[in-house]
């Protein structure tokens, strides 16, 4: 299997690089100059898949979000505290019934193709996302409650909702619902896929498939988000956006200066940059919003229908030790269903002790008795747990962590059967309900992700077979809380409802939280002003510049 061999190569090279690391690097000390310098090209190396379409309205995945954040902008943004801030919309109000939202738009903004940004453009974008012919998935779900957009006047757009939606602003802050030129979209989906026109600081000027995208500065740029460090066009002339799928090659290219910044940096290289600042490589950790990375117990069938068995598994595996050693201290432990960047996250560290004796006792109580080979048995059934792992979504360190879990769970009498699968096979295994535990990341801005993941409705599969409620949680009280929260516009009240919901999920041992969804960047120290947007943690280079002579 090719996937395995590349991963092995990455592991082999990673080790070798640890040895080679000390001889390379040697960039200039940071802070040598703090006045931004205009010009230059930033060479970005992405480990994510190359998008098949540059318009994130179509489909809607993370690789599209990464690159689209450079040329498209959403109506609203989010600041480091998690608060929604103005971007292409300067202000907004809600009707008392929550069914209509009025947005005031920024004046004087023009798309890359010269089309003015106005209320008619907002309407055209929403209609394109909701049109089945666009084949939108993520944006379509995010705007599910939007019935229509009314053009009040040039700079005022009114969203009409079919039901109150407290998550509307969070939904509109994501790259998958960002604004594109109506004239660009009118060329048809296929043409727009190759070169969407947005309002962002860079525009798509060339796409050489399987190799790179060239993004050049948009000189007419006039729409920085409220938290931007400067007004006006970007400092960089251009960004060379390369696709380098192999993690070891990507890191080697950064070390040798062939590229300036990489994403999907592996934990060992992040730790190296953090411990050795003089090597000239800087780490930027930007965990993704929405759900934490967690193991979900399939409560719909098999051994995990019994809460005692779920609790026993939690106590049988030593998460902290594994995470510390395999992630080199770069991944702080999570005890919450939500990412630590979500202000409404509820954390319960005491619910997840490592306690093999307690695990044994719980399994005894649940009627699972030790069998001849150490695996517990009940009514002639062995305690087998199927664990499909996606090699696309779980980095090598996480795969190793799951193998450690497998080993320590065996001590307690669980037979964990890990299968490493490519993405299509993995989704197919989930759709066929062939799993007892699973780790499935879910990126979305805001706590409403809980409704997607844990509402009873999420057990019913979409026509594609996909269903988000992989823990197969069906608790009427929880459903009630989640739908109430999604219709509650008062932030304090909403936060309280989401915290209650999370407490139920944790109290019933439905999940085992591990850490935030990792999103690690490494860049050379002559690059300045790089930050990740606080929406889905994609990088922005509006304020970035490269100091010369290093």
């Amino acid at each position, binding site marked *: 299997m090719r996937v395995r061999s590349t991963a092995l190569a990455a592991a082999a090279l990673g080790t070798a690089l640890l040895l080679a690391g000390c001889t390379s690097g040697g960039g200039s000390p940071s802070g040598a100059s703090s006045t931004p310098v205009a010009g230059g090209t930033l060479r970005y190396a992405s480990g994510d898949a190359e998008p098949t379409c540059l318009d994130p309205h179509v489909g809607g995945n993370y690789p599209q979000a990464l690159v689209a954040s450079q040329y498209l902008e959403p109506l609203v943004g989010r600041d480091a505290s998690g608060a929604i801030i103005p971007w292409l919309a300067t202000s907004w109000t809600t009707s008392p019934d929550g069914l209509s939202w009025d947005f005031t738009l920024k004046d004087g903004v023009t798309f890359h193709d010269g089309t003015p940004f106005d209320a008619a453009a907002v309407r055209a974008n929403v209609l394109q996302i909701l049109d089945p012919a666009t*084949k939108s998935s993520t944006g379509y779900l995010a705007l599910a409650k939007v019935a229509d957009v009314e053009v009040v006047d040039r700079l005022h757009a009114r969203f009409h909702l079919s039901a109150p939606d407290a998550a509307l602003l969070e939904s509109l802050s994501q790259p998958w619902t960002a604004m594109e030129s109506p004239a660009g979209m009118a060329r048809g989906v296929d043409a727009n896929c190759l070169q969407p026109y947005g309002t962002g600081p860079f525009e798509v000027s060339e796409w050489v498939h399987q190799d790179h995208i060239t993004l050049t500065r948009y000189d007419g740029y006039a729409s920085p988000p409220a938290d931007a460090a400067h007004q006006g066009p970007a400092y960089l002339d251009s960004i060379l956006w390369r696709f380098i799928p192999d993690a070891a090659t990507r890191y080697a290219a950064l070390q040798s200066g062939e590229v300036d910044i990489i994403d999907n940096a592996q934990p060992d290289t992040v730790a190296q940059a953090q411990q050795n600042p003089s090597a000239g490589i800087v780490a930027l950790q930007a965990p993704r919003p929405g759900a934490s990375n967690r193991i979900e117990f399939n409560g719909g069938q098999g051994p995990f229908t019994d809460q005692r068995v779920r609790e026993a598994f939690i106590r049988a595996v030593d998460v902290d030790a594994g995470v510390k050693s395999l992630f080199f201290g770069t991944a702080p432990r999570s005890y919450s269903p939500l990412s630590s960047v979500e202000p409404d996250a509820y954390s319960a560290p005491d619910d997840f002790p490592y306690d093999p004796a307690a695990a044994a006792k719980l399994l005894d109580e649940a009627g699972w008795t030790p069998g001849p080979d150490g695996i517990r048995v009940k009514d002639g059934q062995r305690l087998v747990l199927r664990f499909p792992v996606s090699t696309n979504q779980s980095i090598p360190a996480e795969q190793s962590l799951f193998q450690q879990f497998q080993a320590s769970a065996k001590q307690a009498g669980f037979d964990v059967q890990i299968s490493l699968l490519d993405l299509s096979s993995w989704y197919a295994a989930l759709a066929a309900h062939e799993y007892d535990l699973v780790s499935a990341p879910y990126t979305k801005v805001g706590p409403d992700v809980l409704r997607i993941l844990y509402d009873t409705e999420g057990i019913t599969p979409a026509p594609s077979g996909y269903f988000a409620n992989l823990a197969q949680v069906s608790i009427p009280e929880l459903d009630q809380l989640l739908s109430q929260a999604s219709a509650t516009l008062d932030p304090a009240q909403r936060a309280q409802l989401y915290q209650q919901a999370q407490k139920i999920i944790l109290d019933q041992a439905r999940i085992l939280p591990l850490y935030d969804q990792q999103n690690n960047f490494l860049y050379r120290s002559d690059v300045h002003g790089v930050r990740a947007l606080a929406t889905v943690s994609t990088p922005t280079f509006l304020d970035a510049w490269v100091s010369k002579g290093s």
Partner: protein
Amino acid sequence: MGVPWRAVLWRAVGGLIVLWAAATATFFAIRAVPGDPAQAVLGGPGSQAGPEALAQVRAEYGFDQPLWMQYLRTLGRLASGELGTSYSLHRPVAAVIGEQLGGTLLLAVLALLVAWVLALAWLLATTRTRGPWNTLGSGVELVAAALPEFWLAAVLIVVFSSTLHWLPGLSDNTAGGLALPVLALAIPLAGFLAQTMRGSMMDSLTAPYSLSARARGERSTGLRLRHSIRHAAAPGIALSGWAFGYLIGGSVVIETIFARPGLGRTLYNAVTIRDVPLVTGIVLVSAAAYVLVTVLAEIVGGLVDPRPGRAAA
């Protein structure tokens, strides 16, 4: 007549059967593994597209029809030379392949040439009728042939790119950018080639014509160059058809590791998201290239070593 025309004709007929078998095997293999090709159209696995979008795609691409009907339609399309449209890229498969083919061919041809040069140079240097040279040479060949390309690629990057900074780890079509991926493919292949040719080289060094040439006063190097390689090359040339297939297969790993555009990397991505027309197209083009090189090897082999009977090899 040096060219074994009968054998060439049979290779060509066999080639058509290979193409049909490749198309059939690819079609059923990719539909047999888990994963829904409709999702490739809708932005990849895990798509949450709405019911209308999914129904539209299923009807548009005929996924709602029985599998055998989809197969016959695909076969009919391919027979008329139409490779179809990629599910995921929404572009004609022929255009995608046309764009990516050059880079992979360049890599494969260069790797084949370099492998031949390395193998011949190594054989010339180490084939001796006496002393430990022969054993040593053979041992090194075995090790080289056993090296996995991905490991070799990783080591080459660490040594020549990260540590010495001599060559880029990211490959492009410049001499420097091609050096590491070509070496990663050529070194194991050179091991195979040299190992295959060493026996016949030894045989020809001890053959009566070599003894008489030596008796005429030819020096050993001249002898090896003039006479032995000509005879020794035959099994190597016969192997080159297979070697080309090996190189196309190796390009999947090498293009991914060296971030090089090409068919191998496109194939890997296409398989991952179950893009049936793109996978079928790339497999067909690779199979056609393989058939072509095998026929060429047959012709060249006949010209280099016109002894009758070897064409059956």
